[in-house]
């Protein structure tokens, strides 16, 4: 598995506890639209992603992230920065 695939798998696992509707997760699954998350779930989820990868995703960066693929890219880039 490439690093990105590994990150994708980990992100998917982190989404599951919040995936109440059992939506099938792909690169293009959106958080607000497909998963129907509100701001409170987003907060909890982002915190769990930050702790898993030991990174920070600022609210400014979060505003640009709409789907799973974008989040995986952001996580990859933040890990490489660190």
């Amino acid at each position, binding site marked *: 598995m490439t690093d990105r695939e590994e990150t994708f798998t980990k992100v998917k696992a982190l989404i599951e506890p919040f995936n109440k509707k059992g939506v099938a997760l792909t690169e293009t699954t959106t958080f607000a639209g497909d998963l129907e998350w509100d701001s409170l779930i987003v907060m909890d989820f982002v915190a769990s992603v930050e702790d898993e990868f030991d990174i*920070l995703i*600022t609210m*400014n960066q979060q505003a640009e992230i709409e789907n799973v693929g974008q989040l995986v890219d952001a996580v990859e880039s933040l890990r490489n920065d660190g």
Partner: protein
Amino acid sequence: MTDPDMVPNAAPASHNSGGGRDLFSKFDPLIAERQALLDTGVRDPFAIVMDEVHSPVLATIQGKETILLGTYNYMGMTFDPDVVAAGKKALDEYGSGTTGSRVLNGTYQGHKECEEALKEFYGTRHAMVFSTGYQANLGLMSTIAGKEDYIILDADSHASIYDGCALGNAQIVRFRHNSVEDLDKRLGRLPADGGRLVVLEGVYSMLGDIAPLKEMVAVAKKHGAMIAVDEAHGMGFFGANGRGVFEEAGVEGDVDFVVGTFSKSVGTVGGFVVSNHPKFEVMRLVCRPYVFTASLPPSVVATAATSIRKLMHAADKRAHLWENSRRLHQGLRDLGFELATKEAESAIIAVLLPHQDKTVRMWQALLEQGVYVNMARPPATPAGMYLLRCSLCAEHSSEQVGRILDMFAAAGRATGAIA
């Protein structure tokens, strides 16, 4: 065949005559939810009118004398004779308003006196009065942290803190509510360059819980951050001088900015930031929510200054407020209500209810009994909670607290909120 959804509504549902999308359509789900609630026959919890106000704790609402238990009027200063007299005098001597910005024609002697009163109350070198507490937070957050800087805030922060962040250009990082460990971890992950401002609140107003400021301030200092504490709901009755939770926690020397409001314990309207930072006064030139708005009317700053000075010597009122808060908390627990905190941590006691319908019915039953409380719902509340929020006042008599508990018992049983 006619699709009922396609029939034009007789009511003026939209005003988009040009064929473009009605900008208000985004609010349709909220409008529908609210209408469905009102259609059940309940009164609108967000449209109460106080027809007459008799004291800090008593008003007439729709012809009924009602005990006020949701006003944040913690110290009951709104009808204090000295406070009212100071306002009347200023109104006579300085007129009804300044019609100007603090930095142009809007600073009167009364504004400076009010800032002097704040400096004495807080023991700080600088004090800056804003037109509301909301603007004080808006001003501090948006001004002092630039694009390269980080603001680290509690997830349950007040809307004015979030909005101040949105107005500015700083990088915003959130930590889990009141978690010292979470704050520590996030500060540890920040890049070495760039300024850091940690924003905390003494009392979080939705649940009435207080922050572990001693531990949080220690962690923020360890990582070289500046610290702002919002004491909107702590001023007046925490700490030996009533400065707030940060005074009680013994961290006065480590807090860089204290933000506060006049619309709670002080009993009027307005906001402030106090600080010992040697360059603090430059804020008056660069802080847009301070510069680009009219200053408070002379009567308001006169009432605020008088009230603040009286709050310095209000030990008896503080003691009674704490007695009231602890008694209401214990009494509601004994009745079987679920409360947001184990003990009374502040003068806010939040009753947790399972969903909107039951919350509104309970709220209305209380109003019919003769007690007004605040209803709070998501997104203002954390974790999707529905709350009936009570805030005690030092002017509630022991007898009134007893009556409040009787009314909660009756309303709770009538609505099935308690057995």
